[in-house]
């Protein structure tokens, strides 16, 4: 199972359109790495999440 990247209850930062698309794709934003400033999740992040087979991309810390 994917590992949550955020504390439970923490709302990931993503715009309404990105949130809507994630919902449509059945993606839990909780598990998506956000590449934008302060971890904002973009459409590209959703694309990467999808091609990586739903595996959360670990932040290249």
């Amino acid at each position, binding site marked *: 199972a994917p590992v949550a990247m955020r504390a439970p209850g923490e*709302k990931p*930062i993503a715009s309404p359109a990105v949130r809507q698309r994630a919902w449509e794709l*059945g993606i839990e934003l909780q598990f998506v790495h956000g590449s934008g*400033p302060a971890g904002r999740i973009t459409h590209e992040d959703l694309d990467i999440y999808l091609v990586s087979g739903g595996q959360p991309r670990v932040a290249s810390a």
Partner: protein
Amino acid sequence: GKADVECEVLVLGAGPGGYSAAFRSADLGMKTVLVERYATLGGVCLNVGCIPSKALLHTAAMMDEVKNLSHHGIKYAAPEVDIDALRGFKDGVIKKLTGGLAGMAKARKVEVVTGVGSFLDAHHVEVVAEGGGKKVVKFAKAIIAAGSQAVKLPFMPEDERVVDSTGALLLKSIPKRMLVVGGGIIGLEMATVYSTLGTRIDVVEMLDGLMQGADRDLVKVWEKVNAPRFDHVMLKTKTVGAKATKAGIEVSFEGEKAPKEPQLYDLVLVAVGRSPNGKKIGADKAGVAVTDRGFIDVDKQMRTNVPHIFAIGDVVGQPMLAHKAVHEAHVAAEVANGQPAFFDARQIPSVAYTDPEVAWAGKTEEQCKAEGLKIGKAVFPWAASGRAIANGRDEGFTKLLFDEATHRIVGGGIVGTHAGDLISEVCLAIEMGCEPGDIGKTIHPHPTLGESIGMAAEVFEGHCTDLPPQKKK
């Protein structure tokens, strides 16, 4: 069972929630029936709520503005006020909008069935028209948008001088003394209209402040400007009795600010809240659960406990606001159409259309404190806004709240003229998860009231050059 009409989607109630749900359903290609008790569409909002109140408030705001013009060398004598014509204007506004709705329903081939609707079972609603005629509508899916109604105070006498907001909006006459029971937005909006027309106002509120829900710093500015409208603002005070006499309505109070003697009023407006209509639609027959208080619980997709029956608007809970109803309506219709929509708003704004207006979105400071969320607060006072000063109205301020950990905006509040229009940018900023730099580096036009939002974001960063130097953080 047998049905007179069959449809894919039945919408019960034609307020902003209901008509938006019906229109969206029809636009998505579903055969839609809209059941409404009254002859006109639009519900509380268009007929006896948002719209008529704002028509009167705009007029009141302009009348007050005229008084300010005397400081600019433009002196008007007191106007002739024809309240029949004012009422006529307001009714014309309503008619234009409800007429528009009827036309749009027709254009969408939404069938409107007029009468009181009640569930017979999970797939049938019976509609009883005023004359007594009955129609049964069979539906595949239903969206409940039955709204709310004003709460009554049991001890108030049945008298035409005791009214709820609907009665107050009728504007039958301009009373000398008026009591507003309940210091919420609706009561204060009506108080604004009547006081501008010449009425002296008392307001009584059980809690310890007016306009609950808004942060106190915002309300304070409103209070200061509006103090002259009120003879008595009775906080922490209860209305305990009322008697209709020939001279007026005699009201007695108990509590901290209660006058010892009962007070006499020409008009009493009861505005102590609204209660949902969930218990009045035979929901149990459809198996839809209703809470004790009359609300219908729903999930993020606006589904009730019965998966093909949805509910939206005032009947599903607070905040009871038209814009919440409309957005929920779209979700319900889309989900009924099999789309993966969901209601996931980060913020639902509130506006008091008083003078000045008070508007807020996202989290309030009080909420952040209650949640233990550490926030940074940035305020831009309108006393430094060129436009506010040029307008002769620089009493307001713009406040933004940023999460200290993530530096994202989580809320904001504005008090000042047109605050209700200005707050939209804050709404968008919250939904987009903006940082101070996103807002502050966005070039806002000068000189506008809107630039106060950009400036407040600059204040958060210590970068504002339209204010005295800030202390280093």
